[in-house]
């Protein structure tokens, strides 16, 4: 049997022909990186290749690395295998990785979403034979509301809290979700304060996107300064002493997981906004269809259920175990919520 163009190994997705890995989870010689989240861009590879908008992100996260930046659609050959990066719409600088050899095309999505969030370059479907897709939210229970509606709800929530003289604390991942929220917060309502993790990451991205002004919360920040304003914090800050000092406050979380009432209650946030950087059920199905692919490989999320459904729809679909998604799903579901005990 002929060796497939991409193989799933214990180090990551491997192209034997080019001796290069896609988003490997163990240190390798050459890695093509889809985006900056920690489960996809890990420490310790000798050479990194990624989209140039992701270069500042992974340089910030991983420190001194040997990295080459590419443009959207710019082909590069490694040992006669043609690679190119295409927008995935997940976060700033996130790409799908297209691999072509002798007319056979594979696409690896990393993480992606179909909705244009206005800060990540919007997702583009790429024709291919084999489509390696995430399916974090691969259940019919997930249907996203357009972001305009959700963001308007968030701003209303903030305004209501301000009217009651309370501080609004909004949780979102420090890379991606936080900037998406920040971009659309209505600065007519009040000022935006940030947790250090979010402030630092936003600082890295300011040259790429025009964001509203933020103020880092420090030891010297007075409680009264925060009243009526909004604080952007990573989910891990929930229940920490850092937060407790901000009383009176109201908390909310912005995540696809907020779809579930159980997840919302478990997180013990006052409000859950359903806002995701992944595809919902119909987004996954429509993008798969648009690729024209016959072979589908599901990497992370509700893989077994999703691939079974795809098979029933006539696709040659299967599941491959990877180490993606762990960070995000577990963090989303888990996070430190000591306050709920």
């Amino acid at each position, binding site marked *: 049997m002929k060796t497939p163009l991409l193989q799933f190994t214990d180090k990551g997705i491997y192209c034997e022909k080019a001796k290069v890995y896609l988003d490997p989870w163990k240190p390798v010689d050459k890695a093509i990186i889809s985006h900056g989240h920690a489960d996809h861009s890990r420490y310790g590879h000798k050479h990194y290749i990624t989209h140039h908008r992701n270069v500042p992100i992974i340089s910030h996260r991983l420190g001194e690395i040997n990295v080459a930046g590419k443009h959207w659609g710019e082909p590069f050959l490694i040992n006669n295998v043609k690679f190119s990066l295409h927008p995935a719409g997940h976060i700033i600088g996130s790409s799908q990785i297209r691999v072509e050899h002798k007319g056979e095309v594979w696409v690896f999505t990393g993480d992606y979403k179909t909705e244009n969030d206005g800060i990540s370059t919007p997702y583009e479907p790429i024709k291919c034979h084999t489509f390696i897709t995430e399916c974090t939210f691969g259940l*019919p*229970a997930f*249907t996203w509301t357009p972001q305009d509606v959700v963001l308007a709800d968030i701003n209303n929530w903030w305004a209501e809290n301000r009217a009651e003289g309370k501080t609004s604390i909004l949780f979102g991942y420090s890379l991606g979700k936080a900037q998406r929220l920040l971009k659309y917060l209505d600065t007519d309502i009040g000022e935006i304060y940030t947790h250090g993790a979010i402030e630092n990451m936003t600082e890295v991205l300011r040259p790429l996107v025009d964001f509203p002004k933020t103020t880092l919360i420090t030891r010297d920040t007075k409680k009264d300064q925060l009243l009526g304003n909004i604080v952007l914090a990573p989910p891990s800050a929930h229940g920490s002493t850092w937060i407790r000092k901000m009383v009176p406050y109201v908390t909310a979380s912005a995540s696809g997981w907020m779809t*579930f*009432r*159980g*997840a919302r*209650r478990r997180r013990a946030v006052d*409000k859950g906004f359903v806002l995701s950087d992944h595809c919902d059920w119909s987004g996954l199905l429509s993008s798969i269809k648009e690729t024209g692919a016959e072979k589908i490989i599901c990497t992370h999320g509700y893989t077994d259920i999703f691939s079974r459904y795809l098979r029933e729809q006539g696709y040659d679909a299967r599941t491959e175990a990877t180490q993606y998604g762990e960070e995000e799903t577990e963090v989303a579901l888990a996070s430190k919520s*000591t306050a709920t005990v």
Partner: protein
Amino acid sequence: MKNFALLIKALDSTNKTTVKVQALTTYFRNASDVDKVWTIAILSHRRPPRPVNTTLLREWASELANIPLWLFEESYHIVGDLAETIALIIPATELSSDKSLTEYLQEMIALKKKSDEEKKNYLHENWKVLNYYERFVFTKLITGGFRIGVSQKLMTRALAKATEIDEDILAYKLMGKWDPNTITFQQLILEENESDFLSKPYPFYLAYAIEDEVEDLGDVTAWSAEHKWDGIRSQVILRNNELFVWSRGEELVTDKYPEFEKFIGTIPNGTVIDGEILPYPNNHIGTFNDLQTRIGRKTVSAALLKKVPVILKAYDLLEWEGKDIRQLPFKERRHILENLFKNVTEQNQSEVTERSRSEVTERSRSEVTEQNQSEVAERSRSEVTERSRSDIPLHLSETIYFTSWEDVAKERERAREMHSEGLMLKRKDSPYLVGRKKGDWWKWKVDPLTIDAVLTYAMRGHGRRSNLFTDYTFALWNDNDEGEKELVTFAKAYSGLTDAEFRKLDAWIKKNTLERFGPVRSVTPHHVFEIAFEGIALSKRHKSGIATRFPRMLRWRKDKNIHEANTLKDLKQLIPGKAQESKTQKKEQKSKESVEK
């Protein structure tokens, strides 16, 4: 429906009691009277009977969502709530509905009698016109089990705020049998009507568990102590020659316990007794496991009645001669109760004695000689005492005699042999309060039994634990027929760990799954937990042959590997009586050994 759905959404999106009460109060101030009655009914678990079974609901929902049934089921396992799953998978439309909560509930009542085709059309039409949250609430009303973190107490508090009627009075008014479909808000809440109160129980007074040292309760002479019986807390009401038996869950269970019909005519009208329904097989207090065979059965067979009869262990008197005496000190209520008990049993005894004496005379005249007549009388007298005890299934929960806290502690040690859960401590001068209040009544349970077991299966939880593996099955070692050690399942538990521990275990389970059976996964035997439980009994219904009562995880024994977990044999040793046996066995063995030496 819109307002009710908004109320549920508001209640659902906060963890703060004050915010919940505020949302409910505002709702009660603005809702129509009929909607108010239905809201009270729903929040006090008085829903109309389920009009559609859940199998059909699943089929029809997946049909409307255009997904295969298996995919619906998988989604349900992950979402963890049927109504929520249905609300999530049905596509949104631009339509809306202005029907009120009452209209919807009346339609649901009417729906029960309709054909499947009509039911399906009704559901499809309504699912399409409701928005996500309304759809969720609508489906919840159909499936039942409205658990949204609002207790009846909380609802009553809000109602008290909205109506400015005292909370305890409202709690009393809301108890008992009433039909939201016929009663008006005026009748239920505002009016005072004596005849309505015929079946009404009083709100139960509930005790807190003692957390600190028992000595901290102060002067021992101010307290009364009795065993804490392990049955069904209930109120037995006798009014107007009618009997009503209420369980603590505010369920009228009169029909389930026909034994108590004997109270009519024996216990005077205008009496309400607070006590515990206990199983009484072979004239001894049984285990909760025995009682389990009676719970949940509406009609009880003669065979079962004979096998597991029940008694009422009375410990308090709330109404006497038609008067509410809850404000009297416990000591005085107890005194009246004891007199009542004495009268009931004596009266009964004298009746029976009367009967047998005439029997004796009857017999003596025909066939018995003078000499042995007294013997016969003696015999029948002892028969009488036996019979009178089992005739009227009323027992008194005896107060314990003690002079020091040490005495009390000693009595607590006897709990397991008495088939009790520990002790109840009641302040002698305390009135009978409403709900769970600290101070006057305390439960002092015996320390639980514990055993170290291996985690073997896991299932996703519900509610706030949906999508997390939090429901576990545990196993103990046992030698199979081939003499090999194998793990035998013995209990399920889903409480006792911190949220952080649950998360860790959830992540581990996802990575260490061996097999999947629908929502259940078998996992690599690796983790050992100390399982605590309140009671233990032999059981034919369990694979292990043992039933444990209220098992939960006490500790995650990370220091132990699976081979250090306990065996089924160890568990069996914990059955009361068995330990005694093994002790004597050991003793015998020891003495044997010493003889050999």
